[in-house]
């Protein structure tokens, strides 16, 4: 924390290397937070860059008494809200009712999470622990799909299963992870 404050003060004084270190420290949380609501990884990264750029411009307004990552997540929440509302309108224009409604519901949910940024960060930390606690088979599937970038079709061929079976297995693993995260986050809170 003390180290982070030093970096923030150096960045405020115009030290670009210090700000880059702050980016490296917090990019994972900001990107994961945005990734909850935005399905396209490239868009997540664009938005996350916007968040850090905005933070760089307004670093003088950051109050030292609040955790820096909570401040960043607050900026990210506003960026994500703008994006989701805009996407909802765009899909509505294209008569895509399903995607329009889903983006809108995500936006509503994000708005209702105001004040819960610390809890979201805790859940992200809990997820890392829950991933380690997965059974071997599930862990392999998650690692291959999410971390090694292998598609459902590739995994189906590797494991001799149908694509549908692979997707459904991943769905069940996500359910398990969700329950685990809720227990740990509530337990930790």
């Amino acid at each position, binding site marked *: 924390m003390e180290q982070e404050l030093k970096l923030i003060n150096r960045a405020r004084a115009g030290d*670009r290397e210090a700000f880059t270190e702050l980016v490296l420290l917090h*990019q994972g949380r900001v990107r*994961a937070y945005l*990734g*909850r609501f935005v399905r396209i990884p490239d868009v997540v*990264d664009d938005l996350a860059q916007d968040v850090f750029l905005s933070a760089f411009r307004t670093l003088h307004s950051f109050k030292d008494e609040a955790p820096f990552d909570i401040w960043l997540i607050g900026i990210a929440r506003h960026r994500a809200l703008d994006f989701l509302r805009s996407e909802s309108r765009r899909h509505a224009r294209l008569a*895509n009712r*399903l995607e329009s409604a889903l983006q809108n519901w995500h936006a509503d949910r994000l708005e209702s999470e105001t004040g819960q940024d610390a809890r979201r960060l805790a859940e992200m930390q809990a997820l890392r622990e829950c991933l380690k606690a997965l059974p071997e088979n599930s862990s392999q599937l998650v690692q291959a799909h999410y971390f090694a970038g292998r598609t459902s079709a590739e995994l189906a061929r590797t494991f001799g299963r149908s694509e*549908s079976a692979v997707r459904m297995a991943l769905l069940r693993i996500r359910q398990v992870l969700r329950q685990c995260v809720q227990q740990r986050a509530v337990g930790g809170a």
Partner: protein
Amino acid sequence: MQDEPLKELWTRRLDGASLSAAEADELFARVSTGESLRKELMDDELFHGLLLSLARSEADAADFGQQVSDRIDAEADGTRFVNAFKRRMLREVPDNRRRVFAHPRRWAAGLAAASIALVLGAYLFLHRVPASQAELRVWTGDVQILRDAKPQALAKGTRLAASDTLVVPAGASVEVGYAGEQTMLELEPRTEARLWDEDGAKRIQLNAGSITADVAPQPSGRPLVLITPHLRVEVVGTRFSLEVDEQGTRIEMEHGRVKLRRPEDGKSVELTAGHFLEARLGADFAAQTIPTSGTVEFQEGLNGYAGMHDLSISTQGVNPNGTINRAKDLAVWRIETTNREKYEIRSLMRFDGIAIPRNARVTSAKLTLSIDTWNSDWHLQGYYVKAPWNAAPNSALGWLNRDQGKPWTVPGGRGDGTDVLAGKRFGIEGQTGKGTVSRTVELDAAIVQTWCTDPSANQGILFINPLADKTIRIFSSRASDASSRPKLTITWSR
């Protein structure tokens, strides 16, 4: 979740697959009405996205940090002028101050000059044009800028606001540029576009029409983004052309590279020079090599072509204008020796709406005609028409006039260099007259090239029969057998 088929649909959607309209409707109906189901599915999507981002952020943290750093650099570029000005002022103040105290009059003059410089600097700063704000450069025809549906006055350098729609009707064109860089956009006829600035990055929305973009290198992290209903194109610096219609979007790369993303499923493709991609229903979302040569045929009623105009003009009834005829065949003859009235008939032929791929060069052009004659040693002369003629059914076209109030320079359209191109003609001939024969003649490729690139230069061909009393008929675009109609064949390469 209880419903297995619904879960299957949901996981397919998360996997990036396109759902059919019926599947999307079914999913929408279920999640709209079932609150607990909706919450469960959306929680699942949150975790799916969370896992994707978590993995990505672990894999490329350093790259991401560099990208943020690049964007900060790009933002600094935008204020480089102001900072340079400030530094220069700081450097020069000590010298000026020394001179000021040595020479009081120069001190007063210096103060006045500094005041003017400050006011000028402030004015330039406040009225500076962001590099990402588009400006009107050159236009032809009835181009409009609509702001809140109201047309705005056009002037060279007019800046486009975010709420403006640039409308380029048929027959018009416009070039748009950006202050301080070489980026140039050419909007072609029947195009509507919005161009705006988004946090210092250029944005273009194109719902219909065609655009050719020559994009200078863009600031790091701020690509020019072109958005169509079917495609999102991120451009760092390149030249490409893009066409949008109701069915889809086609983009061709001339040089450089762009990143493309399909909005409905987020699928990305990087497109490099010499390749094209079509984003439309049923087409693979994949780059394909641009063909370097090809042949296209235009024959009325075949392969969807319907742009031919052909008719005969005659000296008969020359007072006031001569008759015209639109029959199944085009008469071309000159009657001199019969006891009846002496008269001449010539024919005009034009293929409107011909097109070859953008930037393609016509390497050869051929005209195939079905010709009916019973005269031996017959001959036809073809002239490339220069002056526009009005083929509309009730127009004033005839032997004397090419349109209302516009006479041919020489009656019958034979004014060399005025009615027809000077020194450019071709011949078709035959030795025997046995009824219908097919003849293919090579046309001037350079002239046909102008027909393709500039529709106003496409005025077709005038056929004249130089030999008296040898009647010749050319099957017209109205011939019962479509294969007998005139056919223009163009071979192109690039």
